[in-house]
């Protein structure tokens, strides 16, 4: 006996109720549960759908789908970093390397000026405001809870693998609280700080603007099923 369309829908709902929010993870679990339920029905054809479903779910252990979701998230983080690295590399090839060089020079010059700390703190603050503005703008466009969202899609659009306003706020705090004085630092130290700041700028730009603008391409590349739904 095969599961009906309605029963499949109910399985999707069941996974959502058990804290699986992304369609790609849900689909795999639904297929697994469906196969197992059908297998149970071979031996016990009169067993109710809910009962058979609960038997299958119990096989996932006491933590249910949590382990699967957690590990999937970890695997996807790895994938996100790979994509990010691919884009970062572009900034070290022609023609973008010229812009990278310019950003570096600007940072290096600012760091040697008398107002280094103030400039860095002010620009971090501006970035935080810009980031928050886009974050709220995207939130207002957020899908309804029943729409299909892929894990990578939500990472590109919302969480950005943790690299969002939080990192910037932390940098802001670090500089502000630790009383860093760039004027007393050696030239080599300033070089390192400038390299780090340039990298931060590039990563921020990629995660906030480049990746979201290429989300469709990246999702098609990762999910063969993306075009099917």
């Amino acid at each position, binding site marked *: 006996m*095969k*599961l*009906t*369309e309605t029963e*499949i829908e109910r399985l999707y709902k069941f996974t959502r109720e058990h804290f699986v929010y992304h369609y790609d993870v849900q*689909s*795999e*679990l*639904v*297929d*697994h549960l*469906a*196969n*197992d339920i059908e*297998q149970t029905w071979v031996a016990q054809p009169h067993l109710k759908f809910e009962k058979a479903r609960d038997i299958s779910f*119990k*096989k*996932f*252990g*006491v*933590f249910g789908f949590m*382990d*699967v979701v*957690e*590990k*999937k998230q*970890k*695997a*996807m983080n*790895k*994938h996100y970093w790979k994509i990010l690295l691919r884009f970062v590399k572009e900034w070290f090839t022609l023609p973008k390397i010229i812009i990278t060089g310019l950003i570096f020079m600007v940072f290096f010059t600012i760091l040697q000026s008398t107002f280094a700390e103030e400039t860095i703190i002010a620009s971090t603050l501006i970035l935080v405001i810009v980031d928050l503005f886009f974050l709220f703008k995207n939130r207002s466009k957020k899908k309804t809870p029943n729409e299909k969202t892929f894990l990578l899609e939500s990472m590109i659009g919302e969480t950005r693998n943790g690299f969002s306003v939080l990192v910037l706020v932390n940098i802001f705090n670090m500089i502000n609280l630790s009383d860093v004085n760039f004027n007393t630092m050696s030239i080599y130290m300033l070089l390192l700080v400038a390299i780090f700041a340039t990298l931060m700028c590039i990563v921020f730009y990629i995660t906030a603007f480049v990746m979201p603008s290429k989300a469709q391409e990246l999702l098609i590349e990762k*999910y*063969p*099923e993306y075009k*099917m739904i």
Partner: protein
Amino acid sequence: MTAVIARINKYTIKPQKNMGNQKLFKGSLQTIILKLLAQNDKMYGYEITQKVKELTKGELKITEGALYPALHKLEADGLLDVEVAKVGNRLRKYYKLTEHGTKETANKLAEMQEFLKTMQHLVNPKFSLE
């Protein structure tokens, strides 16, 4: 309270004989998945659990909570590639070996053979007079 403990035990405690096997088996899960995929071109999660059950006559059972994390890790490491097909009224995700995965399967199997040989020496040593 007793009811709660009994419920937890129901999920966590398995027969002793089985438990020992499952522990030994856990470290070999990735190698088993890779080996199965090397023999079967492409497989989906449920198929893998059933195949292992069938091949080992029910002696070893891949738990659902361990299989998918292992598959997702192998995919993230670039050893597996995925393919999705609509089967009946649902989507099915198939896993297959990448080129890198095929090479890695050979390495992992060689490692496993070596390990089995070492274990054999340890649990069943052959004494000689030399």
